[in-house]
């Protein structure tokens, strides 16, 4: 065996000082806010975590697809269809656990449709994703009937002892199951991508499919599997919406989260942990929005003007943030090299 020299690591693996300082300041602000008004701070932070759940799951879905070289603009539609089907499973079976499984399976199935279109039928990947999005609005609109009865929704599970820690406890350890699962999946996907053979193969296919092929990796098999896995994650995000967050289905209830997730993925440079940071940012923007009515009466006098901002302007905050994030980070982040390309064996 030759001595294997480690390949020079890029500068990114050094400690990111600006980020650490930023995080430290943020943490300090949170502690100050908590001391001033513990109830509101906890509510906002809790809302941040929960609002970030569908976005991080969507971003993980995007990562799984794009790391293998397939653009997935259809996450929005996958989420919406899975949310709808998960809701229907809940109506039919009355079992929330089965309903979540159903939503995930539905997501994987729609992922397979995306793979079929973009890999086998060689449709442009962005158009294929758009087809899924339009199908999702059409099908859910047609098959949705008002007044279906549901069997409740997933409720928070309090983890004893850990939930008693101030700030962290109620924010991280008193959540419904899919929120926990999302946090675990961030770590799981990170390990899958960067520590396993599967992950290495995935990334090889996404960077240089021809080279991957010559060393015996089945390119299209890897693409199919990862796109379906991505679909399953998007399905879980959909399941979160109907089975955990709202408890019922509403038309177009994804509200652009699938696209926000893609921006978050780019912000996180196609890494699960980086994307989680991005998702938290959006979760905070959304959380603040949902808590703003609650906040209005407790605002200190110098912040009273915040209450006068028309709700539409607060409502568009996440979308403006997405644009800013995209404009600011796309140029600097390098996507997988083979992204968007079809692969044909020579």
């Amino acid at each position: 065996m030759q001595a294997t020299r480690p390949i020079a690591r890029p500068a990114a693996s050094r400690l990111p000082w600006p980020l650490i300082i930023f995080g430290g300041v943020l943490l300090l602000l949170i502690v100050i806010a908590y001391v001033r008004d513990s109830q509101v701070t906890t509510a906002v932070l809790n809302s941040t975590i929960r609002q970030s759940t569908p976005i991080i799951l969507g971003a993980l879905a995007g990562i799984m697809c794009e790391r293998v070289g397939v653009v997935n603009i259809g996450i929005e539609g996958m989420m919406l269809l899975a949310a709808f089907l998960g809701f229907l499973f809940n109506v039919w079976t009355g079992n929330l656990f089965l309903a979540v499984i159903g939503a995930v399976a539905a997501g994987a199935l729609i992922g397979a449709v995306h793979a079929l279109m973009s890999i086998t039928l060689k449709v442009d990947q962005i158009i294929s994703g758009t087809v899924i999005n339009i199908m999702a609005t059409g099908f859910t609109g047609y098959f949705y009937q008002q007044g279906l009865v549901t069997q409740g929704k997933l409720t928070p599970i309090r983890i004893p002892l850990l939930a008693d820690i101030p700030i962290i406890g109620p924010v991280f350890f008193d959540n419904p199951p899919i929120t926990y699962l999302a946090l675990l999946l961030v770590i799981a996907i990170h390990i899958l991508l960067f520590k396993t053979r599967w992950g290495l193969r995935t990334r090889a296919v996404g960077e240089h499919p021809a080279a991957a092929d010559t060393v015996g990796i089945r390119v299209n098999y890897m693409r199919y599997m990862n796109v379906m896995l991505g679909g399953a994650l998007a399905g879980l995000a959909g399941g979160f919406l109907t089975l955990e967050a709202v408890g019922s289905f509403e038309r177009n209830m994804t509200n652009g989260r699938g696209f926000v997730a893609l921006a978050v993925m780019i912000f996180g440079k196609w890494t699960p942990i980086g994307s989680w940071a991005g998702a938290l940012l959006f979760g905070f923007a959304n959380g603040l929005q949902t808590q703003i009515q609650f906040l209005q009466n407790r605002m200190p006098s110098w912040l009273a003007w915040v209450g006068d901002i028309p709700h539409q302007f607060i409502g568009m905050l996440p979308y403006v943030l997405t644009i800013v994030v995209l404009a600011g980070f796309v140029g600097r982040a390098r996507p997988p090299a083979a992204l968007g390309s079809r692969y044909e064996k020579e």
Partner: protein
Amino acid sequence: MELAEKQPPNRASASARIVPLLRAVIVPVMAVVVALLIGAVIIAISGANPIKAYTSLVSGGLGNAKAIERTFEKATPLIFGGLAVALAFRAGLFNIGAQGQLLFGALMAGYAGFAIEGLPMVIHLPLALLFGAVTGALWAAIAGVLRAYTGAHEVITTIMLNFVAINITDYLSNGPWKASGVVARTPKILETAEMGKIGNVPLGLVLALVVALVVWWLIDRTTIGFELRTVGHNPNASQYAGISVRRMTILAMVLSGLLAGLGGAVETLGVVGRFQPGFNAGLGFTAITIALLARNHPLGVIPAALLIGVMQAGSSRMQLDSGVASDIIEVVQALILFFVAADVLIRTLLRMRDTGDNITLSSGWGQS
């Protein structure tokens, strides 16, 4: 070179021109047929009679003069939207934001229609149209500039701008520009800004047809059109040949937004008479279906938009007559889009060869 120019233009025989046209048309037509068949199966599964449903759909869209007028009204913004998406496609851009650009166009045309007083019609109406078109263009320009200078992909930025546009137009028509009364809408436009009809044909449709011709001429017969198409085919080669990809990207988005904004303006000035938030939701996506069904040909957009227009105009009649929810037309549209996009399926069915003119957009998220 000069010799070549002096030669008379090559007049192809009639049959030689018709055959390629047939070949180009057959895939979209088959896509529509297959989509309608699958739609029929879905209707049958949900317990209704598909033949009855489709009959009332067609009679609701074409049955009498009133129905045809409704179809024309529905098809008009669809033509503009389809042209907007098709033009951007030809330049290699995917404008999913026709919705937002149309909203702004509709709002600003409505504003010009009620707020500017004392002008004769010959000035007021064009001015209101211009207001709508320019606002649409400016709104789309944001996405164009972001794409050209930061590489932010227009697919995401235009969708996000849609949501922003919904919020801003909602705020303006529900706040500063709200008409008196409970309903959130702007005041009625003045008579001098109203777009009338010639017989049963709305003036807006006439404008749409003229604009389609202009867009076709622009794309196929001018230098700008050539540069746009070249950038769409191969941005790297265009840069090499001295075409500014940035300038073309912004120009394509501006023109695309201009068309969508004009569509919104026509809707306000010719059909609704004022701006109401939430109208024409989903047009942006329908426009994509139309553009792809037309294979991004500006003149093909017209029949494609009329087809969807018939479905939209007839859908409420269908719901009334046969009890099939009008949302089925969205399912059929999605299926049409699927079969147009995955035209391999149709071509295999017809045993046709690959024409090799597939659209390629996925160049990743980075700067192209």
